[in-house]
């Protein structure tokens, strides 16, 4: 096989069928093909790596002798590596890939300077690699989702600044002057991340807040990584993919503004709820708890919009790979928000505080919500980008099945396991060794869940690289495979 040649032809924009069939869209796609392929390539690799680390961490909880001799792989290092590669490796690259595609398509113009975007994202990914090695060597910071050593921060910051500016320029270059919800969410994600990342670095590393308040800043940051970076990128993809894959406009689209502003307002405060019973002033945690309840408003709006749209075309969901992943993502999102809101209630706090419940909800949010949505989006984007069909629907089915089942096991293991653990630790004086022993089953279930997620990740990788490296068939080279519905490219008023 001529892999290199195929790779080049995947990336090269000269397709005979192009000009005739999908003129503008083809030039748009061609303008972002190079950066997008490199973003998705990074994303699928990090997905695999993150899942492997997650699995190792989980195995270590029920079988602590697993890899115990290796000082670079002790639980306290593997766990942060798992979270950081999951977020800054997989989800950031995948989410950014979707965002760039949406900015280009919704803006209606080919984008310039694809190469500089690629360079910036390569630098970003190098920073992730350095961060992982740094944690292994023992330079980690003790802040949730900011464990990457402090020397990686400037690299992340500079490359993100480049990425953000590139996207802002791409947004400005649009020919469609009025904007669609997806674009707002992308702007929010980019702007907020620059804000929360620099605020957190300044208040934790450069001139740290006093003792106990570092914990507040860290909790605020971690919640915002979900609420203001990952979730907005996923919302952007959902608002775009619903009309595209189902052929309808989003149900109740005019309520988008309410959901948008209320989400930003409440999500940016919700992190403080973690401070309940902690060593900082009580009112801070109370504000956070109220904000978490406030999230009920946008969550309800999203649920009506997304589920309403998906259920109204339910039979179509199973025809399209993208729509299926989207549906799983939306269901996970609703579950995550319910758990988050339930978890902020006084009574449930008393049970689940400090247990693995939070980790379970976060894993469901990352793997289940964001991960499934971005995967669905990539199954929409990649065939268009490369003008190749998905190589094997069996692999896609396998990935979908493995992911859904894996998520269910993960949720049972960590979320219901976490409630049980909390009952034992916060509600009794049961000996710690008894607790560890009781939890072994839950940890085991989690490992099974993560093994299934790993299987899914492998299937995804195979699909991706197969597609990238395969020869274009006669049909693929000469025609446009994809029947676009141009009237849906732009559904907002």
């Amino acid at each position, binding site marked *: 096989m001529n892999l290199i040649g195929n790779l080049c032809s995947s990336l090269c924009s000269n397709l005979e069928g192009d000009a005739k069939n999908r003129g503008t869209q083809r030039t748009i796609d061609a303008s972002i093909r190079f950066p997008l392929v490199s973003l998705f390539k990074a994303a699928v690799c990090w997905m695999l790596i993150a899942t492997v680390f997650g699995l190792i961490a989980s195995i270590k909880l029920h079988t602590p002798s697993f890899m115990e001799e290796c000082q670079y792989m002790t639980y306290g290092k593997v766990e942060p590596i798992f979270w950081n590669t999951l977020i800054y490796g997989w989800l950031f690259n995948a989410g950014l890939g979707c965002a760039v595609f949406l900015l280009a398509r919704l803006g209606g113009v080919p984008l310039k300077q694809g190469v500089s975007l690629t360079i910036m994202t390569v630098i970003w990914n190098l920073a992730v690699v350095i961060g992982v090695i740094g944690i292994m060597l023992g330079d980690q910071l003790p802040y949730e989702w900011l464990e990457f050593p402090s020397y990686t921060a400037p690299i992340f910051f500079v490359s993100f600044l480049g990425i953000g500016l590139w996207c802002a320029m791409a947004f400005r270059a649009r020919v469609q002057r009025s904007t669609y919800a997806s674009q707002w969410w992308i702007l929010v994600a980019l702007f907020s991340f620059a804000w929360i990342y620099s605020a957190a670095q300044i208040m934790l590393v450069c001139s740290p807040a006093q003792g106990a308040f570092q914990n507040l800043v860290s909790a605020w940051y971690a919640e915002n990584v979900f609420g203001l970076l990952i979730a907005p990128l996923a919302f952007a993809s959902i608002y775009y993919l619903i009309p595209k894959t189902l052929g309808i406009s989003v149900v109740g689209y005019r309520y988008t503004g309410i959901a948008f502003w209320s989400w930003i307002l409440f999500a940016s*405060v919700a992190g403080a709820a973690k401070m309940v019973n902690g060593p900082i002033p009580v009112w801070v945690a109370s504000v956070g708890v109220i904000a978490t309840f406030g999230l009920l408003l946008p969550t309800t709006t999203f649920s009506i919009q997304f589920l309403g749209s998906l259920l109204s075309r339910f039979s179509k969901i199973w025809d399209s790979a993208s729509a299926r992943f989207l549906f799983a993502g939306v269901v996970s999102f609703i579950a995550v928000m319910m758990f988050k809101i339930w978890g902020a209630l006084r009574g449930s706090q008393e049970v689940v505080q400090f247990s693995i419940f939070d980790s379970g909800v976060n894993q469901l949010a990352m793997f289940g919500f964001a991960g499934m949505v971005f995967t669905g989006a990539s199954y929409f984007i990649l065939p268009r980008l490369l003008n190749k069909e998905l190589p094997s629907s069996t692999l896609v089915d396998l990935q979908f099945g493995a992911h859904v089942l894996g998520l269910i096991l993960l949720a049972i293991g960590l979320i219901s396991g976490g409630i049980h653990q909390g009952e034992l630790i916060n509600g009794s004086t049961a000996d710690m060794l008894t607790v560890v022993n009781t939890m072994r089953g839950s940890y085991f279930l989690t490992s099974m869940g993560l093994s299934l997620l790993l299987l899914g990740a492998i299937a995804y990788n195979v699909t991706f690289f197969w597609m990238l490296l395969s020869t274009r068939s006669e049909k693929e080279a000469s025609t446009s495979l994809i029947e676009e519905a141009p009237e849906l490219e732009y559904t907002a008023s």
Partner: protein
Amino acid sequence: MNRGPFIFLGVFIILSLTWALVINKPIQESGHLSPIFDAEQGGRLPMNAKGGAAQGKLVYQEFGCIACHTQQVRVSSGFDLQRGWGERQSVARDYIDQTPALIGNTRLGPDLSNVGQRRSDREWHLLHFYNPQITSKGSNMPSMPFLFETREIVGEPTNRALKLSAEYAVADGYEVIPSRKAEALVAYMKSLKVTYDLKEAPKSKDVMLEELTAALENAK
């Protein structure tokens, strides 16, 4: 709603206001605490950590112990006091010397704010770090054999060597010596104790009652 600058401005305003409310305001109001001097309780409160302990704190960070251990005691919920993890609520002043503060938010193992008080035996900690199964059979805390050196006994066995039972013993003629990192970590563990009182967090009634009775007993 259709214009980029409008969205930017709106998001900017919301984010700055919420940041000012939940981050900046509490820090301005109560994030600049100073130590208290109390001659009766031995001078400066909180007490400063000693050199070896500071080294050990770095080892604690390096190996990510925070993934499983918190260092905060709650009284208004949970069983922290009953478990003997502390005698009073942890408050902001307890942490003013700590940068970074290793407060943590996950408890797969016990809270360590006062571990130095309940476990002051160096040998126990070393055995526990070498292999938790020796001291706590069934624990899932990671073992850290890499903090120890297994070496041939030259002449007399060193008295710093671990006293391993037959089950965990190394080959004949060899001994297990704790590295400097292991010793520092033990020093840090032993330094973790909150023995002083602060006005803002009096010890709970039960603890005070106990102390009072003990004092009365002594007086008799």
